[in-house]
């Protein structure tokens, strides 16, 4: 078992920074580099000590610090832990870390403290992953989401479904093992199905909050897409880019929308073209549209809505539908740009489409403030409260859902289940799948339920 160490606070100029050491040699290493009134290996657990970090070789004082000593097993990783509260600033913290590494620790891999905590059974997997999400949280809202999950919000929700299933399983099992005491129950799985479906749906939002969404600005050439893009980006301070390698460039940028990271993408104007470069741009536009969560469709209000606009609109709808949004119209916001110019009479009406229309002028900055709230509204319209976050959770939920579906069709096959052992089989599978998220259920748990609810046995 290695002793590991890392800087625990975000890099940058903070007031204080924390360096953490965990493992069997944590106290020993602290003894070597920390000089205070007492040795850290001799103080009681969970106490704080003032002192200095001194390089034992050069005797150079690196920082004045507070040292927190925590002995196993009551620590986050269940190993001995030292936290050094030092003055912030990357260079100072890095020097302390290097000193620790020189004296016998290994640099912790990303999330390794959490992994240790998980492996030592301090927290369960759902919690461990939420911790990783906190580390990686991109904006405020997703931070609070991660905290919620750590507190067991997701676990609670799944626990409720599991309880419901255990109840059903106990009834079935009681009727199987005590046929002379307990009648075959009427099984209703509707509530469970609804709850799981809801969680599955919220999975999409969970993913969206964590990874961000793409909003594409689409329209035919020269309707003012780029001006609109520039003004939206400049008015909303772009956040740190969530993905390495992408920087704010001329065609895409990240903005913070009520805590959700939004990737705004300016697309090439779409029109028939023989120019290979332009063709390439058009193809890319179509790909982005396909991936987009929402589309800002820009019209030139001064020109009126033309046949070309509508053809393009149909194309966008198709692409959105290919992305699995049957009600693609709910993902489009119409922007009538250049409202400052005099309007020509509409040649074709937008009547059948029924998506929100916002008149703006990108050039004169008229009414552009109402675009982002419209996107927020669109997101909230298309989603339910976010809970499910991890692919692993989604996978387990999906498997549970499949089992429940099969159980439902078995229930429906005959009014009274004549093969309750198969229904029970599916329900136990569903319980096991959910147990992968929040902890297993044993046959003893089912038996306990039977004996507490049924007066069975001769």
């Amino acid at each position, binding site marked *: 078992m290695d002793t590991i160490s890392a800087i625990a606070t975000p890099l940058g100029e903070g007031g204080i920074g924390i360096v953490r050491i965990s493992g069997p040699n944590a106290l020993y290493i602290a003894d070597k580099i920390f000089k205070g009134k007492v040795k850290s290996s001799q103080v009681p657990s969970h106490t704080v000590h003032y002192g200095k970090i001194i390089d034992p070789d050069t005797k150079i004082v690196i920082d004045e610090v507070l040292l927190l000593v925590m002995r196993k097993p009551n620590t986050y990783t269940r190993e001995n832990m030292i936290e050094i509260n030092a003055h912030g600033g990357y260079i100072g913290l890095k020097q302390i870390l290097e000193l620790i590494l020189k004296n016998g620790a290994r640099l912790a891999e990303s999330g390794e403290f959490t992994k240790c905590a998980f492996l030592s059974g301090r927290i369960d997997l759902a919690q461990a992953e939420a911790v990783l999400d906190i580390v990686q949280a991109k904006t405020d809202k997703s931070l609070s989401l991660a905290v919620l999950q750590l507190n067991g919000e997701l676990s609670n929700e799944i626990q409720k479904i599991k309880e419901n299933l255990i109840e059903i399983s106990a009834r079935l099992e009681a009727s199987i*093992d005590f*046929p*002379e005491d307990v009648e075959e129950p009427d099984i209703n799985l509707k509530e469970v199905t609804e709850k799981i479906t809801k969680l599955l749906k919220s999975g999409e939002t969970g993913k969206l909050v964590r990874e961000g969404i793409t909003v594409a600005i689409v329209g035919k050439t020269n309707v003012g897409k780029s001006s609109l893009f520039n003004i939206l980006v400049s008015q909303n301070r772009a956040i740190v880019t969530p993905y390495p390698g992408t920087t704010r460039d001329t065609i895409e940028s990240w903005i913070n929308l009520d805590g959700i990271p939004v990737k705004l993408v300016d697309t090439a104007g779409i029109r028939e073209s023989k120019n290979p470069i332009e063709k390439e741009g058009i193809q890319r536009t179509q790909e982005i549209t396909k991936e987009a969560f929402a589309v800002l469709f820009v019209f030139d209000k001064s020109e009126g809505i033309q046949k070309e606009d509508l053809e393009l609109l149909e194309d966008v709808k198709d692409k959105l539908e290919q992305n699995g949004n049957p009600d693609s119209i709910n993902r489009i916001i119409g922007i009538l740009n250049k409202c400052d110019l005099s309007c020509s009479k509409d040649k074709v009406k937008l009547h059948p489409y029924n998506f929100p229309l916002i008149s703006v002028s990108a050039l004169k900055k008229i009414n552009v403030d109402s675009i982002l709230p419209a996107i927020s509204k669109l997101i909230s319209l298309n989603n339910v409260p976010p809970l499910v976050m991890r692919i692993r959770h989604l996978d387990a939920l999906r498997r549970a859902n499949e089992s429940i579906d099969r159980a439902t069709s078995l229930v429906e*096959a*005959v009014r009274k289940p004549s*093969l309750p052992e198969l229904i029970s089989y599916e329900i136990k599978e569903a319980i096991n799948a959910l147990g992968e998220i929040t902890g297993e259920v044993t046959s003893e748990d089912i038996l306990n339920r039977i004996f507490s609810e049924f007066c069975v046995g001769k």
Partner: protein
Amino acid sequence: MNFDCIVIGGGHAGYEAALASSRMGLNTLFLTLNLDTIAQLSCNPSMGGLGKSQLIFEVDRLGGEIGYATDQTGIGFKMLNTKKGPAVWSLRTQIDRKRYRENIRKTVMNQKNLSVKQEEVTEIILEDENGSSFTKTQKRAGVNKKKAIGVRTRTRMDYFAKTIIVTTGTFLNGLIHIGLHHHSAGRMGELPSEKLSNSLQNIGFELGRLKTGTSPRVDGKTIDFSQTTTQLPDSNPANFSHLSKNFNPPKIACYITHTNQKTQELILSNLDRSPLYQGIISGIGPRYCPSIEDKCVKFKEKESHQVFIEPDGLDTDEYYLNGLATSLPADIQIKILHTIPGLKEVEIIRLGYGIEYDFVFPYQVYPTLETKRVENLFFAGQILGTSGYEEASAQGMIAGINAGLKVKKHAPFILKRDESYIGVLIDDLVTQDILEPYRMFTSRVERRLILRQDNASERLMKYGVKFGLVDKTYCEKMEEIKDKVKLKLKKFKSQRVAPEIINPILRKHKSAPVTQSITIFQILKRPEMKWKMIESIIEPLETEVSSKIELHAKYDGYIKREHELVKKVKSFENYKIPQEFDYLKVSGLSSEAYEKLSKIRPITIGQANRISGVRSADITRLLVALKSKALIN
């Protein structure tokens, strides 16, 4: 006197162990407190039922006695759960108590290699420990094993043997309660075994105390059967044993009546005389077999409880009142009965009672049922905290076989959870905390759909043949049927029936009619459709074949899924942990996991994983430690 094997105790674990070991060629000594009560059914006169019938089928296919004796002396066979699928069908029968005893006694007396003596064992004799030194690691791992070499009796006789199987049931420090009075007894009217318990404790075994209870038995001449409901046995009954031929047992009925509000009031107002509710009984009783006091207290809202009136035998008027287990005093017992329809003027022949007894916590045995502490010493049955004739018999069988294998220096025999109920039973015993007498339920069995009565032969007979306990001609017969089923299945999956032929049948049984022709297999797959209903339109087949075909149709897809799951955990279940493994060397193990693992010493990772308090993270760490150890070696 020297033997290969000594079996102590003549209950269901005892006779199976003694018969198995002597049939495997071991010179066996069978010691019992009372030869006239061997194979006694101490509680209700019935065998089988849910979970338990599967055990009987399995013991029978391994070459045990319980199934055949039950078929010989059963007087009312009934298949339970026939409205559900075949995986949960369970056979049960009323037993003629006296005939069962006599039947087993005769078999035991006629058994080659088996000597029977009526003696009370007071002590297990261990090999002299002369200065052998062990390392700390070995000690922690329990390698500093003592060896059992014989037994001492109350009459100061010493018997020596290579293996010793203890099956003392409820007799270890047995204490009977009726009302606030109690007395020492192994069973009503029989002496307890008092000194042996001390001997086991002195050796270092951890003992606990459990409680169970039994119901009053009454004179049938004083029952008004007109006030009860009759429950008839099956008119065309199935049997347990592969040995039974021309099966035609007596068909004696049971009767059902119910307690009422008066019963409840009477019981609740007399709890001050209940040893259970006055804290006199300290042992823990089974929740699945609650006393009538418990039923009335814990389920106050339920005004009526079922009472099964079960015949005790063909030559007696005695009836057992199943459902009325009680340790209330005699005068209250009779008053309780007089509140119940049909029992208003009943006379009690034998009172109900509660009994407390010592048991050995079963984590102290390996899955072979040999103890970890003392080599060559085996435990089986109620002494390991179980309840039930069938559970006892199954353990006796496993202990007997393993004693035989040990003497012959062959590899031990351990059944897996996914191949038998017996495997589940023993695996549960050696890994789980025993908080109440352990009883088998089908819901304990993860792979219930593939571990059925009907395929017990396919699953286990090969072992019975291997150990010389089952004649191989039975195995050949089974293979024949298996082949036939396979052939017919293939046929019925393609053979189609036209709508005009099948629709009238489907309509008659409220099954949706079809528009196109449908295969026989598809028809049988419908939960509501049974073989009997379509018998008229297909070729006649013997029941053994047709029932399997119907089963395969009903469970289509599920059997395959079950086998896939078995395969999935196979490496897990086969991953061995060396018995001398030092859990201190696993870093980061939670203290609870360390404590449990070093106490229970699971033999595989699969078992370790089932121990409560051992988390998946502990398993990960254990695997890492085992892997690095393997690398070093």
